[in-house]
């Protein structure tokens, strides 16, 4: 376990890992958003309520997720 922790710490100094982590965070945010918006729609939230929760306009949420 200790060696693994050490190797992880060493890897964290590799910029490729840090930069990939940032990209992965963007992707994760998009994928979590897609899941959360779908769930909110199922539960009857309006586009306006979803937009307010995400801090964006009703139009932009609808353009992205509306069918």
């Amino acid at each position, binding site marked *: 376990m200790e060696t693994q922790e050490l190797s992880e710490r060493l890897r964290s100094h590799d910029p490729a890992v840090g930069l990939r*982590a940032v990209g992965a965070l963007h992707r994760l945010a998009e*994928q979590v958003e897609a*899941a959360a918006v779908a769930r909110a729609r199922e539960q009857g939230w309006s586009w306006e309520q979803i937009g307010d929760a995400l801090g964006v306009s009703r139009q932009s949420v609808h353009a992205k997720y509306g069918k």
Partner: protein
Amino acid sequence: MFEQFAAEARATVASALEETTLRGDRRIGTEHLLLGVLHEPRAVRALGTDLETARAALDTLDRSALAVVGIDVHGIERAPVPASRKRTPFTSGARAVLPRALAETRRAGGRRIQPEHLLLALLDCERPDPAADLLTELGVDRAAVRERIRRTGR
């Protein structure tokens, strides 16, 4: 550039775009081009790996990078991202693949870029290129793949 693409290679780029938005990325990168190429059965045979395996490998790379910064994505609810209506440009690395693919086409004596020429160009990517990382994660023997493509070539 795209007028030099055969219909199959255009389909590869369309698939790469689809893979890009599904993952929630904003630019078509070399890793997406590689996934796009894997929509072709011939490329699957040449690479000895398939689309699902490659998608899972990219996910593994993401998970381990997130683990390094202390984020555990286990159990988080995620969904594929719907196709964007915004323009999705190529990354500079992906743009650089196109002239290399054309060079492969010429070398093979062809007129139009085929998916395997894109694949040959992608095999030349080197770290820290994302397609290079993906090929390494997949354990692809690049020399063997090149050999298989050039032997069956068109």
